[in-house]
């Protein structure tokens, strides 16, 4: 009796959480995967879904507009994500080092300013930045003019629109990731820095030899969160660019909404969502693998 109670106890305790995860995550995921092999209008009952095999996947990677648009959105999302992570994570460490210095003048103000940008709702950020980026009347081009730099196209040309959104994202997110960096720095015992100094290590050696290795887990977490946040970009595209110009800012969340909801093409939208999920799994797995290899070295 006591043995049966013990063997049942874990199941009873884990059950509610597992049931929650199963109901709200696993079931919708399985349903989406199932729908990706069907032709289905999103506004009709599941029973009307018609099996088409791999046709949806062939279409989204094909040469006609369905495929071209999806591949463009996939490419744009990958570029946006990569640039956001590559800029945000190192920059957050730099700013974190500055903010972490209690004796630096203006540190408190910097902390406040940095985190304030994260507190502003994205819709307000998007609307303000759309005016900042205005090619003819925007303050950014006017300020560039003061220092002799010609007006930039920012959101108005395919060559610059996506990078302009990356800049907007970095501005909005840097405060949050700086807080994470500061939390990682705080966990490093001061004795290790002192020991390094006693051994003759300079500031740079101390950073690369002590600080950075001990921040590995914090940086891993930051990178994964930054990837997930970047992949989910939506408001700036929906509010400002509508995926343009010429599809240069069309990202997967925007495109899946357009296909799956506006056009009600549930099967195609599901195939796109499954592809995005697989890409994310591969990417995050690669990040963890890189981290493990670095830790072994």
């Amino acid at each position, binding site marked *: 009796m006591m043995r049966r109670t013990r063997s049942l106890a874990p199941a009873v305790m884990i059950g509610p959480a597992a049931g929650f995860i199963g109901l709200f995550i696993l079931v919708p995921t399985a349903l989406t995967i199932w729908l990706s092999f069907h032709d289905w*209008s*999103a*506004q*009709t009952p599941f029973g009307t879904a018609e099996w088409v095999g791999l046709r949806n996947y062939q279409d989204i990677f094909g040469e*006609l*507009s*369905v495929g*071209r*648009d999806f591949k463009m959105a996939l490419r744009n999302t990958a570029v946006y994500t990569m640039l956001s992570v590559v800029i945000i994570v190192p920059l957050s460490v730099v700013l974190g080092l500055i903010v972490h210095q209690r004796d630096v003048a203006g540190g408190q103000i910097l902390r406040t300013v940095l985190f304030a940008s994260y507190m502003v709702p994205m819709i307000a950020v998007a609307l303000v930045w*759309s005016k900042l980026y*205005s*090619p*003819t*009347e925007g303050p950014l081009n006017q300020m560039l003019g003061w220092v002799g730099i010609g007006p930039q*196209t920012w*959101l*108005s*040309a*395919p060559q610059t629109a996506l990078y302009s959104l990356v800049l907007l994202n970095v501005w909005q997110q840097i405060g949050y990731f700086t807080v994470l960096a500061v939390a990682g720095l705080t966990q490093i015992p001061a004795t290790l820095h002192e020991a390094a100094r006693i051994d003759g290590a300079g500031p740079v050696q101390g950073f690369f030899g002590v600080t950075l290795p001990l921040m590995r887990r914090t940086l891993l977490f930051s990178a994964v969160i930054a990837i997930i946040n970047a992949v989910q970009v939506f408001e700036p595209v*929906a*509010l*400002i*660019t*509508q*995926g*343009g*110009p*010429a*599809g240069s800012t069309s990202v997967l969340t925007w495109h899946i*909404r*357009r296909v799956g*909801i*506006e*056009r*009600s093409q549930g099967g195609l939208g599901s195939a796109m969502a499954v592809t995005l999920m697989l890409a994310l799994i591969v990417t995050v797995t690669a990040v963890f693998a890189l981290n493990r290899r670095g830790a072994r070295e």
Partner: protein
Amino acid sequence: MKTWKVLPVLLLSCAAGAVSAQTTEVSYLTHWSPETVALLDAAAARFSEQHPDIAITVRAVPFGDLLTTIRSSAGQGAPTISGIYDLWLPELVRDGLVAPAPDSVVADVAAGWPAGIAAAAQVGGTLYGIPNEVNVYALNYNKALFAAAGIDAPPATWDEFTAAAAALTDASTGQQGFGLINSWAAGVVHPFASFLASNGGALITDGVPMLDSVAAGETFALYESLVTNGWAVPAMGTADANTTGPFLDNFVSGKTGMIVMANWWESALRAGMGDGFDQIGTAPIPIGPSGEVASSISYTWQTVVSTSATPEEQAAAWEFLAWLNGEGTGASDASAMSDILMSMGILPSRTSDVTANQDVLGRDFLSGYVSVLENARAFPIVLGGQEFSEALQQTIESLEYGQITAVEAQASIQADAVSILERAAN
């Protein structure tokens, strides 16, 4: 607690419940600006004074979110009434989201609207909405810039048009001869389709894409020449989710000599230009080498009722819509809807409203649009129309930004259009 203290509260609660139970709540989803929504609210209040059992609540979303809101809120939270672009109707009907109109409304629409306009609110012969606005495209030009460039009159042919665009372009001052719009499907596709129509061509005829025609090839080539010669600067033509943005700002500030836009943007022009609005003239779309008469593209909007609403809510919604669009519910024998539309410079479609607003429709800005309405070709309403429109937008923008040539654009969109319409029809 003593009963005598509780009883009045109970009685009041029951009375309140009884009153609310008798009031039918109807929600109205639109994409109109706050100023226009205020007019709709006022009209709804007047209706509710006469019909105290029906309460109307208006909700506005940006145009870019309108279709998504209608589709994603299907079910219990769906708006009772939605203002929709007629291109969306076939798929909304296919998916069972909109209710057929009752017989009284069918009779009213048949009697009160031109047959072509009423047809846009029908699918398979069944009426699903009440048409309200009709929009058409015309050439808008800046008279002051024309005078400064020595141009006496708006261009009537494509040759005159490109000559005017060249004369109006001054790269040193950032002035472009003609404004192309991007990042907004209708803003890209409708002007293109208007030039195509004025060149004797069509996007789709009897469900068959016609973008492989000579007329279409010439229209793609026209766009290519505008950009490669610097007479149109695509970076000056971006639009945002509210259909405003740099394309509007540059025309308002005198940086764009000509642009093709619909009549409804009159209110935006007036707001942006103030007294300077008098410098804006309108004219028919120039005739192309393969065209014979100046033509244009027209499209309509309509209000539909959701199938997710209860029978009582649907009945109340149709009652409100019949009143809103009915004769005499607005000023001077016009409908209340007509008053709202005219405030935005939008043409009403009901025959009696056009008659009642003859004087207003004759004013300078709108007269240019009214003159092209007769020869305008309705934008094709087909299953897959929205996807086709977005694919054409993508192709035209790629052409504008030099990513593909005119020949490549024509071949690509024709193939896409055939695929899209075939898939949608199956």
